[in-house]
C-alpha cells in the first residue's frame, strides 16, 4: 500500500547509501547475536568436552572428545536434586500465592467507585520508596513470627509485589468496560462473584504475564533463602548452585588424597553441567512464552 503512494524512482530500488546502511546494520546485529549467545553456547560445549582440553583452551567453537562424566557426577549429587525439588515446590506455591494475593488488589484498585482508593493505592505503593530494611525485617520474621527456616517464609511474607499490582491494575482499567460491571450489578451479581466469574476469565493474558514473572522470579532467587533458611535440605536450587559455583563445595566434599587432584580437573566440568541443568527449564520455555513477557512490560509502561 505504501509503495504505491511513493514516486516511481523510489520504488525501483534502494539508494546506495541505504544499501551500505543495511550491510552495516545486519553485520552489527549478527555480531551482537554472537556476543549474546556465545557464552551460553560455550557453557554447553564445555559441559560435554574433555575437561583437560577445556582447561588448555582448545575448546572454543566445537565440542571435542565428548564425555558425559560431568552429568553422571551431577546425577549422584543428592543436594542438587533436593534443591531442584525444593525450587519446584517454592515456585509452584509461591506463584499461586502471588496470583491469589496481587490480582484481587489490582482489581479493587482499578475500580473508580472504591471508597478510599487513594489511601489504599498509597498503602501499596509507599514501600517502593521506603522500607524497613534487611535487619528490622529479619527481626520481625524471626523473633515475632518465628518463620526462620520454614517453608512458609519462602512463599508468603514477600508475596505482595507492588509492581505486579500496578501492571495488573492498568490492564483491568483498560480492558474491562465500566458498562460490564453495571450490567452485572443490575443482574444482581456481587463484587466477589463478578471478580471470579467475569473478571478472571477475561484476563487470561495478564494472569499469564504475572504468573510467568512470578515463576521466573522464584526460580532464580537466592536472597530470601540466604537470609531465612538454615538447613541444607530446604535449600532451593539457586543456593545449592551458589555453593557449587561460588563456594566450590564440589571440591570441599571430595578432598580425599590422590582423588582430589583428579577431582580438581573435573570440577569445572561439573560446574558447566550444573549451569546447564539449572537453567534448562527457563531457557527452553522462554522462546515460546516471550510474547507474554513483552506484553507485560508494555502494559506496565502505559501509566494508569
Amino acid at each position, binding site marked *: 500500500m505504501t509503495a504505491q503512494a511513493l514516486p516511481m524512482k523510489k520504488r525501483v530500488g534502494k539508494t546506495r547509501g541505504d544499501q551500505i546502511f543495511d550491510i552495516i546494520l545486519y553485520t552489527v546485529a549478527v555480531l551482537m547475536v554472537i556476543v*549474546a549467545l556465545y557464552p551460553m553456547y560455550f557453557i554447553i560445549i564445555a559441559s560435554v568436552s574433555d575437561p583437560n582440553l577445556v582447561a588448555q583452551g582448545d575448546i572454543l567453537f566445537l565440542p571435542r572428545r565428548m564425555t558425559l562424566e560431568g552429568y553422571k557426577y551431577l546425577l549422584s549429587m543428592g543436594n542438587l536434586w533436593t534443591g531442584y525439588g525444593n525450587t519446584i515446590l517454592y515456585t509452584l506455591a509461591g506463584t499461586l500465592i502471588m496470583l491469589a494475593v496481587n490480582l484481587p488488589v489490582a482489581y479493587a484498585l482499578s475500580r473508580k467507585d472504591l471508597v478510599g482508593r487513594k489511601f489504599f493505592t498509597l498503602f501499596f505503593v509507599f514501600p517502593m520508596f*521506603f522500607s524497613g530494611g*534487611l535487619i*528490622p525485617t529479619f527481626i*520481625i520474621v524471626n523473633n515475632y513470627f518465628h518463620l526462620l527456616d520454614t517453608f512458609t517464609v519462602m512463599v508468603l511474607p514477600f508475596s505482595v509485589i507492588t509492581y505486579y499490582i500496578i501492571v495488573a491494575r492498568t490492564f483491568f482499567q483498560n480492558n474491562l468496560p465500566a458498562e460490564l460491571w453495571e450490567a452485572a450489578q443490575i443482574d444482581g451479581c456481587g463484587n466477589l462473584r463478578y471478580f471470579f466469574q467475569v473478571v478472571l476469565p477475561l484476563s487470561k493474558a495478564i494472569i499469564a504475564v504475572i504468573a510467568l514473572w512470578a515463576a521466573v522470579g522464584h526460580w532464580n532467587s537466592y536472597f530470601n533463602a540466604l537470609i531465612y533458611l538454615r538447613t541444607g535440605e530446604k535449600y532451593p536450587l539457586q543456593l545449592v548452585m551458589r555453593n557449587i559455583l561460588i563456594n566450590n563445595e564440589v571440591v570441599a566434599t571430595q578432598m580425599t588424597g590422590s582423588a582430589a587432584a583428579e577431582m580438581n580437573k573435573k570440577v569445572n566440568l561439573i560446574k558447566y553441567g550444573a549451569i546447564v541443568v539449572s537453567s534448562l527449564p527457563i531457557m527452553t520455555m522462554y522462546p515460546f512464552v516471550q510474547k507474554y513477557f513483552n506484553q507485560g512490560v508494555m502494559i506496565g509502561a502505559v501509566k494508569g
Partner: protein
Amino acid sequence: MRGYHGIGLWQRIRRNAGLYLLMLPAIIIFICFTYLPMYGIVIAFKDFRPAAGILGSRWAGFKYFTKYFSSYMFGNTIRNTLVISLYTILVTFPLPIVIALMCNQMNAKRFKKFYQVSTYLPHFISTVVMCGMIVLFLSPSNGVLPKLMSLIGVKMGDLMGMPRAFSSIYAWTEVWQHVGWDSIMYIAALSAVDPQLYEAAVVDGANKWQKILYIDLPLLIPTAIVLFILRSGSVMSVGFEKVYLLQNDLNLSSSEIISTYVYKMGLKSSQYSYSAAIGLFNNVVNFVLLLTVNTIANKMGNTSLF
C-alpha cells in the same frame, strides 16, 4: 462517580464490601511483613537485645549512626556504592536505545525476531549462575575469555582479584545481561511512529540514517530522559545479590558496598542495631533521592511514579 451522588459514604462502602475483602489478604501480609519492619527501624536508636525485644531494649540515641559515620568503612562503602552504581547506569543506558533503533530498521522479519529473542535471552539467567559464569570465564588459568583474548595477543591477568577491575566487571556484565531486555520499552515507543512521517521523509529524499536521526531519535529522547532520571533515583541501591557473589578477599576493598556491609554486620556478626542504623541511613538517602528525581521527572515529562 456521578451515579453515586446522594448516597451516603457508609452505603458506598457497604455496597463495595466485596472489594475490601479482595484486598484483605494482601493488606494483612503487607502490615505484618512490610509495615511492622518499618516500625522495627527504631532499633537503630536502641541497644537491641533479642531477649528484651524491640520495645524492651534500651534507647541508645544516635550512638550507632555516629559509630558508622566515624568508621573507616563509611567512606569506603559509600564510595564503592556510588562508583559501581554510576558506572553501571552510564554504560547500561545508551545501548538499549541503539538496539531499539536497529530493530526498527530491520525489514527481515524472521531475523529481527531471532535478534530480539537472542538479545533478551541472557536476562533470564539467574544471578547465581551469572556470577558463576563470570568467575569461570575470567579464571586466569582456564577461563575462556583469557584464552580468546590471547588469540588476538592480549594478555589478561586475574581480573577477579584486581580491586580496580571490579566495577568494570560488574557494569559490563550487566550490559551483556540486560540491555536487550531494556530495549523493549524503546521498541514499544518506536512502534507508535506514524508511518506517514517516514513516507514524507522518503519523498523528501531522506536516507535511512537521516530517518533515524530526525524521526526516531527525537521521539525516543523524552522516554530516555525520564527513564534515566528514574534510574538515577536508585543510585544508592546497587543490587546486593550480584555484588555479594562476586566479592572475594582480594577485591573487597572496592567491592564492599553498603548493602553487603549491612548484611555482614547484621546477620554474620549479629550487631543488629549498628546494622539497622546503616540500613536506615541508606534508606533515607534513597528516599530523598527518589522524591527529588520523581519531581524532576514530573516536570520534564508527564511520567511519574505517583
